């Protein structure tokens, strides 16, 4: 983790909320986890504010699950400190009492009904029988499984199991919720349902959500900030837009003009000093790709657009490649 990235990760929430007291739902400082000579996590530092949905991105093996297991106090870090819901890492039982977790590929007891399963976990959090029953019914209603509450979990689809897992994670009304790949293996409808629940968890309950995933679309949909992990290190942190900008993208922009004006547009762009190369895309009428000499900023983009417009070519569409989270993610995790 570079010093700049680390500082950014730690200070981001602090700077953005300077007017409010610096109370974070999650604050990690220099977390490391090593298994012998293998480093699973290296110098992880970040903060998360109450009610925030923080995306933790990374390819397989990046250290996302290890980070979650450390922050939920079922795995001890080799180095570093953290607090979750204001509780220091030295009090793991108290942390577990205040967090909810949907582990990656969590299993479910197939021979229990959803209601029994939630009642059991509610009782492990100290609820009486009556209270546990009420909590189970409320949560099943919340995740849309009330009508199947008496069915064996064995009969549930994967999407229903994930929603049940989310309900289990909320059984103690947690201040911080950790979701490890909650939409893995779900169809688009299932993904939408789960992401809707994630939004409601942060929005209506006010819980902080750490969403670990390698599906970038869902991060762009629901997360306010992201951390990108690669080989156990944070390689980028900030808002989705900030992270996208941090990526050294391919320095290209796509334009669409009227098909009969393509050659005029190519000539106009080629004459612009900030543009290295421009070409029309085969098989896509009216599509142009311009490669900038350096990373496109507002001035170079404006100059390019102005040149095309001055040449009398209306611009129908304009998109800078590398401005999306997926481009940033690939740039930061491939070939490193």
């Amino acid at each position: 983790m570079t010093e700049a990235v680390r500082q950014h990760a730690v200070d981001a929430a602090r700077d953005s909320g300077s007017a409010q007291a610096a109370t974070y739902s999650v604050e990690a400082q220099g977390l490391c986890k090593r298994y012998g000579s293998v480093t699973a996590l290296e110098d992880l530092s970040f903060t998360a504010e109450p009610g925030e949905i923080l995306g933790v991105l990374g390819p397989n093996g990046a250290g996302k699950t290890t980070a979650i297991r450390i922050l939920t106090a079922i795995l001890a870090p080799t180095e570093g400190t953290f607090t979750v819901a204001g509780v220091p890492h030295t009090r793991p039982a108290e942390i577990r009492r205040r967090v909810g977790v949907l582990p990656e590929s969590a299993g479910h007891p197939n021979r229990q009904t959803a209601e029994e399963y939630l009642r059991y976990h509610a009782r492990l959090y100290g609820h009486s029988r009556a209270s546990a029953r009420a909590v189970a019914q409320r949560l099943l209603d919340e995740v849309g499984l009330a009508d199947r509450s008496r069915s064996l979990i064995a009969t549930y689809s994967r999407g229903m199991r994930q929603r049940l897992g989310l309900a289990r994670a909320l059984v103690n009304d947690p201040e911080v919720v950790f979701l490890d790949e909650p939409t893995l293996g779900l169809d688009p409808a299932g993904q939408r349902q789960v992401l809707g629940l994630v939004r409601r968890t942060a929005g209506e309950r006010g819980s902080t959500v750490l969403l670990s995933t390698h599906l970038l679309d869902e991060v762009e949909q629901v997360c306010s900030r992201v951390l990108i992990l690669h080989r156990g290190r944070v390689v980028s942190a900030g808002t989705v837009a900030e992270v996208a900008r941090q990526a050294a993208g391919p320095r290209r922009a796509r334009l669409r003009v009227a098909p009969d004006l393509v050659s005029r547009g190519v000539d106009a762009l080629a004459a612009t000093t900030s543009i290295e190369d421009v070409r029309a895309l085969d098989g896509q009428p009216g599509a142009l790709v311009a490669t900038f000499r350096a990373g496109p900023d507002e001035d170079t983009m404006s100059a390019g657009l102005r040149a095309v417009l001055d040449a009398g070519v209306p611009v129908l569409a304009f998109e800078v490649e590398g401005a999306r989270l997926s481009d940033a993610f690939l740039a930061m995790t491939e070939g490193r």
Partner: protein
Amino acid sequence: MSSDARAERHGSAAWTVVGAQEVRDLWLGGSALLLALAFSLLLSIMSYLAATNTELNFLEQRESVSLLAQVSIGAGSLLALLAAADSFSGERERGTLESLLLTPASRLQLTVGKLLGALSLWVAAFAISIPYILFLGRGVGVAGDALAVGFLLGSLLAIFLASLGQIISIFAASNRVSLTLSLFLLLALFAPTQLPASAEQGWAGELLFRLNPVTAAERYVGRVIMQGEAGSQDAAWLVSPIVAAAVFAVVALFVGARFLRLRAGG
């Protein structure tokens, strides 16, 4: 945190919740009913054979009762071992262990609850064997002794074997490994019971029989039921089962509290 979530903090201790759930899972949805059925079938066959052999004077009535008590102790404690050997490796294999470890219940409480759940199979097995022992022991005034000694020794062996199975289950990555290793150790412990009486001759033989909690329990049951000796007369045979039950229970709880954790991948 909402009112209903935080207001109620007077629920039962976690180990009782885990124990109760374990019993429910074993008996309502799990394999306990099937095992209990197999156990009662075994006792029925044994009782029939013992009763017919007694009729033909091949077996003394006391000998029949002793045989049945020993079978019920052995098979009953085997059921407890099987349930315990599945306790944590089963959760690990089903991917449900992480959810349990994430609750505020301490690992010691989880271990105690699971151990009690496994012991419920021994209690059920003993309850099943009561009518068989009463039937075979009718008229010779030995049924009471057989039940008392059977319950005592069976409970000690069940605690010992269930603790052993649970220790293995805590470390085993899969159920297959846990069950295989547990059964192998069980066979090793039971093997000397099949040796001829001459194997017990000499101080070394007797020491081995007294050190092995299974053989010591078998000898004690035999002496009390068949020879009608007072329980206190051969109390030295009780040392090994008592020590094994106490030591292995403590070790299982310690191991659970200290070493129960996720392995790579779960």
